[in-house]
């Protein structure tokens, strides 16, 4: 049985970037990896494929029913790249798209055929409906990871994800493997995320700093692992990969009520703002030469 994990988090928080780097790092470590993008944007695996997108599962099946030979495309270091696909913005039902794509891959033995050591689902948004919860149901992923920054809305999304995990946990659904803190610029941000996990019976598996190397590599259409393998950032992703592959933790998180979450957050946000003000003031003081 392959290890199957699903990565969730607020829109634009860095799920696909983190996932692709994680896949690339795992592949470098010698594991056979399959990355499945569950997002109609079809952009999960682009940095594994030199910036080029691949035909999606749903499009392929739509155009030629019964053709199941063209759903998996090789990317960096032989990583199996799959994009579920889905409707154009503003039409159809993306949630149903995810259900249909995962069922198609799963029921037809396509995943078994490639028998990867690890399968990573990169899932858009939070678990807004039954479709987006598909990967965490019994029999698909066994661990969920969530990417967050120290922004309130990002943590809010994590808290919602925890509610989804809780819901499905009664029925054999996936449990939490850990929280990935992303785009970290200060230790206070780390402290805030850490405090959140402590209060919700979860844990941080890795902090990933905000880094211009990531941006530069993305512009070149590659992951940091491929584009800047010797950088400090690449080492962070490799460390994450080693931790994920060995991680057996399964947390049953205890999410905040929405009101309590807001109360908890306001204290931290004030501190972060103050911290930023001090930073800016310092710069101004230094610049003024006093």
């Amino acid at each position, binding site marked *: 049985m392959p290890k199957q994990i699903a990565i969730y988090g607020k829109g634009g928080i860095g799920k696909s970037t983190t996932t692709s780097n994680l896949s690339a790092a795992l592949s470098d470590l010698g594991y*056979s990896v399959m990355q499945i993008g569950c997002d109609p944007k079809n952009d999960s695996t682009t940095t594994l494929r030199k910036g080029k997108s691949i035909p999606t599962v749903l499009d392929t099946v739509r155009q030629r029913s*019964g053709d199941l030979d063209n759903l998996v495309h090789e990317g960096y270091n032989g990583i*199996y790249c799959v994009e579920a696909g889905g409707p154009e913005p503003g039409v159809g039902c993306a949630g149903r798209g995810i259900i249909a794509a995962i069922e198609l891959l799963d029921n037809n033995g396509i995943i078994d*055929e*490639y028998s990867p050591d690890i399968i990573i689902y990169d899932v858009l948004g939070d678990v807004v409906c*039954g*479709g987006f919860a598909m990967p965490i*149901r019994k029999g698909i992923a066994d661990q969920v990871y969530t990417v967050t920054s120290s922004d309130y809305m990002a943590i809010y999304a994590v808290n919602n994800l925890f509610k989804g995990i809780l819901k499905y946990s009664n*029925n054999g659904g996936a449990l939490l493997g850990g929280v990935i803190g992303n785009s970290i610029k200060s230790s206070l941000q780390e402290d805030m995320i850490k405090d959140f996990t402590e209060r919700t019976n979860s844990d941080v598996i890795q902090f990933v700093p905000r880094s211009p190397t990531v941006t530069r590599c993305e512009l070149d259409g590659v992951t940091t692992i491929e584009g800047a393998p010797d950088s400090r950032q690449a080492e962070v992703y490799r460390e994450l990969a080693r931790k994920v592959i060995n991680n057996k933790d399964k947390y049953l998180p205890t999410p905040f009520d929405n009101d309590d979450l807001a109360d908890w957050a306001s204290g931290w946000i004030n501190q972060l703002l103050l911290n930023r003000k001090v930073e800016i003031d310092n710069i101004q003081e230094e610049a003024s030469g006093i």
Partner: protein
Amino acid sequence: MVHGNGHHRGSCRKNKIKRILDLDKDTCPNREQRANGTNVYYGKASQLLQDAKEGNINIPDRKFQQSGGCVLNFYLSNRVTTIRDAVTIFNAPVGCSAGSLGYRELYRGVPEALGRTNEYNNAWLTTNLQQEDVIYGASEKLRDAILKAEERYHPQAIFILTSCTTGIIGEDIEGTVDEVQAEVNAKIVPIHCEGIRSRLVQTGYDAFWHAILKYLVKEPEKKQDDLVNVASMLSYTWQDRLEIKRLLGKLGLRVNFIPEFATVSDFEQLSEAAVTAPICPTYTDYLSRGLEQKYGVPYFLYPSPVGFSSTDEWLRNIAKYTGKEDEVEKLIEEEHKIWEPKLNAIKQEFVSLRKNGEKPTVLGSLGQGRLVSQMPYFDELGLATPAAMAQDFDDLLIDELEEIVEKSGDFQLMVNTFQAAEQANVTTNLDPDLTLTCPFQGGTWERDNNVTRIHSLRGDPEPTSAQAGYAGAVAFGNFLLHAFKNRSYHKTLSEKTEKSYKDWWYEQDNPLYYLNESK
């Protein structure tokens, strides 16, 4: 640990999909994926075969399409509701269950003297999903329905039929089932028959067998060497059931008929049988493979017991697995002695009615399973089949169709499910002496030559409607002969009714005129 690079994929995907069923999954793949099925084709049978072999089959859209059934309501629901000591829950808006309403009355047409049980009721519930359930999820409603079913009926099993609605919102049916199972005695069996899953209704049958294999069939306690599993088609009649029972009974064998009118224990003991025998290969395929894969119960898929030579073959196959090789030869001889003169008389009469020495032509409208079993039978009757219609076609029957094309030569083949207009067009253009249609495929319409409705439902107990075994071959032959001789029904029909379509449609030489070629 295998590295991504240089990892080679296994053998041909298509064979792999067909043979190995993954019963750990919640459901089966759909027929399009599992067997490259289609229900849109008109042309030479040989061409369809070639397309199938090369993997070139697809399902183009029609710009004009007549109504049909869905994976849920095209006979799946009617079948499941007949299971005697079970309750069916439609996890659906109320309309999805509408098709089941009439069936209780229909089945009550079978006299008790012929074996229908006295205690016969269709018990089913619907969760009656509403807007609110779609928005907020409906697992509580399903839970309630399961508990109500248990409390009211104390059934042995509770079947859950899923629908488009639960499929679209991604209801976690298995999650609810796992949770509630501990609270009820009945075994809960969720079936994934969401209408939108597939354009081929056969997917519903596969989904049903998947659930049966996954939830209901028990580990064998003992082998029952005289038990023969027969998954009987709804559209074979009650008489066919009796004929099969009679023939196997003469060999000292018992029939385990599923699913219609079966009890839950009939399903549980499927694993103990000596063999699974087909009535319709396309219907039985998934069950047969699953029983072999999981419990080593052998099976064969061809032929079905239709016509003399196929019935001989069918019985011999069963005898092989039950150690009745000697007995079966005796039985075949006896039966031929009784029935062959009657079949020959029918054949003779067809010969005497020939116009200019030519064989009468028959255009059969059949499921793909019936297609491969009835064409050899028509041959036995001395009828020519220059063309045929099938409701669907997929890779599961490539070998059988190939055998028929080799034996009887090429023929025109129309594949559609319930497209009455296409059927009317083909029938008019080919103008056969006899046409067989399914009552749901357009029934009868006004034409000068004969159109005869032939598919009867299980609820039809008339001896004249039989088709299976030796008695059925004779009854069916007689039926065709009468239709061939007596044209008054069609004469009256042509006089009294207007044409269903405008002339240009009948004159149109392409029955797939409305196909969307661009896709």
